[in-house]
């Protein structure tokens, strides 16, 4: 069978860095997630796909505890003796444990300089700020000449890069990206995916929400599809790219991919 149809309660595979099982989430009375389960293996890139409004961003907010009521199980480093129950933490504490998130919109501090954006990123360990800025600028060199600029003046691609750089400043083990390619010109999109791969090569595990499903699966190791707040299809990305059901429902024609904003 090419794909498994996980319906809650995915088993924890060996060396998982993030394990989400049977998570429900709501905004007030609006129930958005109705039992979602995903695993992120350590060192991997996991793609989280699905149509607009299916609850992908809501799942990321639920993992982080941002502005959404959630229940279920969300464990960071689930196997170790010090498994961290993210449901008990505030967002800034999640970051302190080694996670970071780049939201889809509003992912920089526009009134601050690029340098200050990076400084805020390592607020948890200020002594190492300068060293970390050097390292992050090494990974994302296009920022090197922008450090003095006010972040509000950056272009879309530069903003996205700064958003990722800000998140890397806390040296996360797990980096979560919400549609990093949204709204960017096609040539810049390639650059963003290349950045993601480079970050992964340096040992960071990644969970990425994307609308550009084919491109994202091309760099991901594993993929999940959410629809209407539930798991639909999941599997290794090479298999998903060839699965007829997946192609028919979620990958569409080769040349036309759904855009989202």
């Amino acid at each position, binding site marked *: 069978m090419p794909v498994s149809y996980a319906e809650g309660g995915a088993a924890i595979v060996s060396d998982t860095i993030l394990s989400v099982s049977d998570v429900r989430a709501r905004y007030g009375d609006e129930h958005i997630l109705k039992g979602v389960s995903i695993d992120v293996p350590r060192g991997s890139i996991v793609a989280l796909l699905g149509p607009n409004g299916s609850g992908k961003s809501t799942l990321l907010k639920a993992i982080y505890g941002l502005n959404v009521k959630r229940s279920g199980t969300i464990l960071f480093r689930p196997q170790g003796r010090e498994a961290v129950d993210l449901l008990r933490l505030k967002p800034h504490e999640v*970051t302190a444990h080694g996670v970071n998130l780049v939201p889809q919109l509003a992912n920089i501090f526009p009134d601050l300089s690029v340098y200050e954006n990076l400084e805020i990123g390592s607020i948890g360990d200020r002594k190492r700020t300068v060293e970390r800025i050097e390292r992050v600028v090494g990974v994302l060199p296009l920022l090197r000449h922008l450090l003095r600029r006010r972040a509000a003046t950056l272009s879309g691609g530069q903003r996205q890069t700064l958003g990722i750089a800000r998140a890397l400043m806390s040296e996360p083990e797990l980096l979560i990206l919400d549609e990093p390619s949204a709204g960017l010109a096609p040539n810049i999109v390639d650059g963003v995916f290349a950045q993601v791969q480079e970050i992964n090569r340096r040992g960071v595990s990644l969970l990425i929400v994307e609308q550009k499903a084919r491109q994202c699966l091309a760099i991901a190791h594993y993929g999940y599809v959410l629809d209407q707040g539930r798991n639909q299809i999941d599997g290794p990305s090479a298999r998903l790219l060839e699965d007829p059901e997946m192609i028919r429902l979620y990958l569409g024609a080769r040349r036309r991919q759904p855009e989202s904003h």
Partner: protein
Amino acid sequence: MLNEWHMGSLLLQLIYNGLVEGAILALTGLGATLVWGIQRVANFAHGDYMTLGAYVAFLLDVTWSTNPVVAAIGTVVATAALAVGLHFILLRPLRGRGLVALSLITVGLGLVLRNALFLVAGSQPRQYAFNQTAVIDLGFVRVAPAELWTGIAAITAVPAVAAMLAWTPLGKTMRAVADNRDLAEISGIDTDGIGLYVWIVAGALAGLGGAMLALVQGTFDPNLGFNVLFLILTVVVLGGIGNAFGALLGGLVLGVVMEVSTWPPFFGGVPTQYQPVVGFVVLILLLMFRPQGILGRARVL
């Protein structure tokens, strides 16, 4: 000739006064904009925090005869403590109720503070123990001792606060939270815990601004700060809500514009009692042509 010379020196005098008044508006407006941007409260009691500061300074200066520096420090500590106390007792338990509800509560809070002062201190005008008739010639302007002290306070406090915002971790953290609260939280900042520091800064600056305003006016009563509340809120909007540097700049600009508008060569000079109208006109013009504030940026959602 003599008249022209006189007008020139009067203009310098007005600019000096405007900068001092502008510094008062800048310092208090900064506190109000941080509170608004970070704590999500338009604090209508901010003027009354100032008034309380003026009375604490009066207690220290006149009743207990301490020197002006000690009085200033005592005042700042007292109003910071008041602001922090009210944060924990009243505003923090009510957080999350929305900007309008919380702001309406501060209207009531201001009323209570004001009337408490009328009750305790009485309505008679008070003045500090400065010689009101002495004149010190600084070369370009001649000032009374009280004006000299407020000038010194303005010249030290505004750059000190600007440096704190620009270079210290607390300053950067507060600007980050005001700019993008969720992202600040994601970056590892305890955005709930930062409220304590915001109120310390806002309260301290309100107290300092209140004592300075009382000095500038010569006499004051329990309505001192309430009378300038509108100007403080104008400064917040002028600078862009939550924009710290915008409030500092907005306050200074508003102070100078209001003073210089009374200069006779400027359309015969606006009568002093209409100065707030000038502030109102500045606000309307700004809202028409630059609704995001001087340093604010257009916010997309």
